[in-house]
């Protein structure tokens, strides 16, 4: 018997910046989005939305609307008496359309299905609604005030997928609370040399996926078909089945390309209303939101927080206390998860003797808040990190040095019972600091800042994938990840190709059709490359094993695949089917969670104009600590996109509310970053320590930069002389702060 020793195979398909597989389709305008689709006999739906923030519906008169030519039907709450019309994956608190009451400006009150969009719009205008206004809970602070009006009187019914253990009883308008408690906090503060404390405000932010929420629904008997802009089709499928009382397998959701998501299309959004309207119309219906409608479909939580941090005079961190109120709007949406993630992120990745976190999710009369890229971490990292910088300042230590001394190192506990730290944070922060010229001299009004945080990533790790090796040698991957721009179809082709030792051009990855595509929990939480990618790798490996079985050796040349298939099937047809699965049980690190800690590490250099308060971002740097970059260029592009969103969140994005009324519901007065907001230099440092749980040691990315950049900008601005505790850093607010500093004699420039 001889033993053959083979050289380790060199990877040719992963770790390479292959061109995007969807580039040609998208560049040529051929890529199909839901809004581009037509279904035979399709009607156009239009939604009547509440003009007030809180009130009782006295009457809805649809008579005139129904008489408009082309109108097929008008749906109101009265049409839903045969089902339990409340949904919500976390808390079942939301009716498909308003029933008896409206709870936010923009809530769905009725919907029209008509032959043309114009007829539908005219009919919506012809519906007459009489409201009796109720006192408005304007924000989370008002929501927890003694005697605050209740936004909802309904009992708390847990949704199908809250994933947060036993949900607590509702406490007034507080629908969820998350707390952490470690060590003897009071003792630590009593003996601290340095205590930094403050009150902070984070605004409502709109994700602005350029494609608005769009759904086509068709109901035929107990079969429901949807074409929908959804990130998590399998979770939506379950909620639709639950709402309308049909088997899960009878709900078919097809997801083509999405025009951006960023969390705004996670969980169930416009799908229930579109199904209800199609059910009543007896024909397929398309509802396509306008931008103002998508803004009130979901948004990022505004937040108020108080934080204090204790340290020794040498800058050793001791303890931290955080209290925050998250404004989840009229319905919980993903608020409880956002609050739990924020709570986990609140202490920051340091070696604390003690900390206490109390985070509350509060109902108000604003539009519901849910997921937006790097939620929770973005809310709190800028606050915690600005206090670390203040401690460094008072201790007379460089901000990078104070982090070097206090940051957790790989293997240390992050949260009790959770996965230990799996990243080199000190290395990451040193790299980004260097990239913005940390040690270079700088002129007055220029400041530099760094920031470090962690985000519990991966969500619940359940994914499956199927690979089909066809008789022409091509491979089709079936996997439920939604392609919304982040590039999974390209990355998965590379992963499957690497595993099968073929060229990625021979692998095709298409969109989800829940009728044929195997189950994947969701697309979000930076999980797709890591979790779904691992399922793809296992499915491809399954095919490889089958081929080795047919050959009777593990030394199979890819050029022999077709001959082996022919041998197996006895003709030029047939296909080998590989199956891959990832579950939280029995897969090592997945059991203890999170799947991985996504690092949120960034640096910025800014310059402030004291005459106008304008903040110019000169340089940014972020660390994409990805374990192993499957496609390095796509990793960089992810970080750059997150950087610009972070810049927008930090500098000017804010949904302005006045007593529950949204004042800026168009892109004319809600401004997002343009080309001209690009920093002069933007660096993405890719860190590859092959320490991720995904394929080839990979772990996800794309969110961390969004949490890191606002914090780095805030710290850089403080370094330039303007400490701020309210976002966004609009010129007006910054100028005002400079005037205050001048009055207090604290303006150094």
């Amino acid at each position, binding site marked *: 018997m001889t033993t053959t020793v083979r050289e380790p195979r060199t990877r040719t398909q992963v770790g390479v910046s292959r061109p995007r597989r969807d580039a040609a389709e998208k560049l040529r305008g051929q890529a199909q989005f839901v809004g581009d689709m037509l279904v035979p006999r399709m009607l156009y739906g239009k939604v009547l939305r509440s003009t007030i923030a809180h009130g009782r519906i006295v009457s809805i008169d649809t008579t005139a609307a129904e008489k408009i030519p082309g109108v097929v039907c008008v749906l109101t709450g009265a049409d839903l008496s045969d089902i339990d019309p409340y949904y919500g994956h976390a808390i079942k608190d939301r009716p498909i359309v308003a029933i008896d009451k409206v709870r936010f400006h923009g809530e769905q009150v009725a919907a029209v299905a008509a032959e043309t969009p114009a007829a539908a719009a005219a009919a919506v205008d012809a519906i007459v609604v009489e409201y009796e206004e109720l006192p408005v809970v304007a924000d989370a602070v008002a929501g927890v005030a003694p005697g605050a009006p209740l936004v909802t009187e309904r009992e708390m019914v847990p949704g199908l997928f809250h994933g947060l253990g036993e949900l607590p009883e509702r406490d007034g308008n507080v629908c969820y609370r998350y707390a952490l408690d470690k060590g003897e906090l009071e003792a630590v503060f009593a003996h601290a040399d340095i205590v930094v404390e403050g009150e902070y405000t984070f605004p409502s932010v709109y994700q602005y*996926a350029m494609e608005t929420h769009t759904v086509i629904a068709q109901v035929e008997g107990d079969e429901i078909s949807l074409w929908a802009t959804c990130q998590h089709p399998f979770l939506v499928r379950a909620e639709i089945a639950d709402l309308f009382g049909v088997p899960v397998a009878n709900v078919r959701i097809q997801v083509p390309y999405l025009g951006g998501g960023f969390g705004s299309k996670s969980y169930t959004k416009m799908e229930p209303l579109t199904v209800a309207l199609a059910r009543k119309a007896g024909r397929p219906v398309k509802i396509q939101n306008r931008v103002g409608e998508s803004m009130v479909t979901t948004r990022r939580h505004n937040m108020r927080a108080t934080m204090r941090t204790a340290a020794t005079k040498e800058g050793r961190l001791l303890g931290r206390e955080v209290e925050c109120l998250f404004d989840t709007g009229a319905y919980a949406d993903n608020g409880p998860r956002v609050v739990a993630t924020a709570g986990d992120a609140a202490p920051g990745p340091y070696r604390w003797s003690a900390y206490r976190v109390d985070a509350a999710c509060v109902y108000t009369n604003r539009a519901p808040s849910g997921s937006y890229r790097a939620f929770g971490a973005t809310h709190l990292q800028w606050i915690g990190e600005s206090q670390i910088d203040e401690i460094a300042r008072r201790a007379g230590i460089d901000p990078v040095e104070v982090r070097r001394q206090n940051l957790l190192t790989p293997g240390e506990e992050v949260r009790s019972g959770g996965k230990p730290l799996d990243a080199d944070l000190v290395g990451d922060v040193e790299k980004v600091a260097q990239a913005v010229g940390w040690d270079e001299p700088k002129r007055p009004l220029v400041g530099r800042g760094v920031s470090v945080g962690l985000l519990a990533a991966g969500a619940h790790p359940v994914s499956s994938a199927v690979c089909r090796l066809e008789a022409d040698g091509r491979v089709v991957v079936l996997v439920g990840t939604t392609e919304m721009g982040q*590039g999974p179809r390209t990355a998965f082709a590379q992963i499957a190709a690497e595993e099968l030792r073929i060229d990625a051009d021979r692998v095709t990855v298409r969109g989800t059709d829940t009728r044929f595509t195997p189950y994947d929990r969701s697309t979000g939480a930076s999980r797709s490359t890591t979790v779904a990618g691992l399922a793809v790798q296992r499915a491809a490996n399954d095919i490889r094993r089958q081929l080795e079985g047919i050959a009777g050796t593990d030394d199979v040349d890819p050029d022999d695949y077709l001959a082996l298939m022919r041998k197996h099937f006895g003709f030029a047809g047939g296909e080998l089917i590989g199956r891959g699965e990832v579950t939280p049980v029995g897969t090592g690190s997945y059991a203890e969670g999170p799947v991985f800690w996504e690092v949120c590490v960034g640096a910025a250099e800014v310059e402030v104009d004291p005459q106008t308060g304008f903040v110019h971002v000169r340089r940014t740097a972020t660390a994409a600590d990805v374990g192993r970059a499957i496609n390095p260029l796509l990793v960089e592009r992810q970080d750059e996109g997150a950087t610009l969103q972070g810049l927008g969140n930090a500098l000017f994005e804010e949904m302005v509310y006045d007593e529950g009324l949204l004042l800026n519901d168009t892109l004319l007065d809600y401004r997002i970053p343009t080309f001209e907001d690009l920093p002069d230099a933007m660096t993405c440092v890719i860190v590859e320590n092959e320490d991720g749980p995904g394929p080839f040691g990979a772990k996800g990315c794309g969110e961390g930069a969004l949490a890191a950049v606002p914090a780095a900008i805030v710290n850089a601005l403080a370094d330039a002389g303007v400490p701020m505790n309210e976002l966004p850093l609009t010129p007006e607010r910054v100028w005002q702060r400079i005037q205050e500093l001048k009055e207090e004699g604290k303006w150094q420039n």
Partner: protein
Amino acid sequence: MEVALSVNGREVVRDVAPQELLLDFLRDSLGLTGSKRSCEVQVCGACTVLVDGLPVSSCCYLVAQAQGREVTTIEGLAERPEFERLEDAFTRHAALQCGFCTPGMLLTVSALLESGELGSEEQIKQSLSGNLCRCTGYRGIVEAVADLAGVE
């Protein structure tokens, strides 16, 4: 009312409502869905098409205004020989993600390349600021356009 215009080099004569938007006409009557609807207030540029070679926001432009003019959409641009260069540069630099802004972006870029207004990175940023992209962070697009315009 009847309008006659050229769309991607083909003559089109149709009856339209006076208030009909060029974007709806292209998408719904002609099936040219490469032009996208997003902001509807001439801020985002996703609906950009060329009218007589100049970029316009088709969400705020009446089809009646295009009477007798030449309209080019992404479908038409993609048929032109010079499109290959654009496609190559955007692909190499990964200057796209979700692809929703991409057709409008390319039409603006093609018009600016034609007029030679992209002499520096500053000019590129300024000239393209009427086209929003929420995914890429713009860096890749600037690199691709600089490459096309021969800007170092």
